[in-house]
């Protein structure tokens, strides 16, 4: 019972975190910071999907969360590699 309320609260918190990230994304100019913000957004979205799946009891959303998490990490690394070396795969 109490867990259900806590779950709703956590979903609200991660949603708020996502909104704050979005605000930052629109107010910042620096390229590296933008990559950092998008990386954080990917983490928050993955958390949001898993929490929503736990609340609704659906098992299918989990794959979506894993995919978001992995593409978020790989794209961050690829972008940093591009900024550092001018190419991603050498």
């Amino acid at each position, binding site marked *: 019972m109490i867990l259900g309320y806590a779950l709703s609260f956590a979903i609200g918190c991660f949603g708020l975190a996502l909104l704050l990230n979005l605000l930052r994304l629109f107010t910042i100019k620096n390229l590296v910071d933008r990559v950092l913000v998008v990386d954080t957004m990917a983490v*928050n979205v993955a958390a949001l999907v898993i929490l929503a799946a736990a609340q609704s009891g659906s098992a299918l959303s989990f794959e979506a969360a894993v995919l978001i998490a992995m593409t978020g990490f790989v794209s961050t690394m690829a972008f*940093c590699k591009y900024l550092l070396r001018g190419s991603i795969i050498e």
Partner: protein
Amino acid sequence: MSLAATIIEIIAAALLVAGGLFAVIGSLGLLRLKQSMQRLHAPTKATTLGIGSALVAVAVHIWLNEDRLALRELAVALFFFLTAPLSALFLSKAHLFRSEDAAKLPPTGTKAGWATLSEDNPAEPSHPQDRKA
């Protein structure tokens, strides 16, 4: 419901609340901190711990409600804890490479310079083993 189950549920609820708050603090740090390198600290630590504790709580929730071990959720938490330092290292390397902070860095104290700013700019530090391969 037994007492033990209630206690476990309260702990899981506390983890969820703490996780949500840490996620908000991580995003707030991105907004409030003034330097790029300071901003890097907020998501790597606060957000990672936030999602980690939230996922552990979800694993407990699944264990209580569906009576199965939610190893997948714990594996994803592990994934976030392993990738956060790597993202942070590469983002800071990209930042150092592009910004003027380079002049303010302390010296390495050895003959070699910082990897990101060296002449040939190797992406990884070179070790004797690598040169052999």
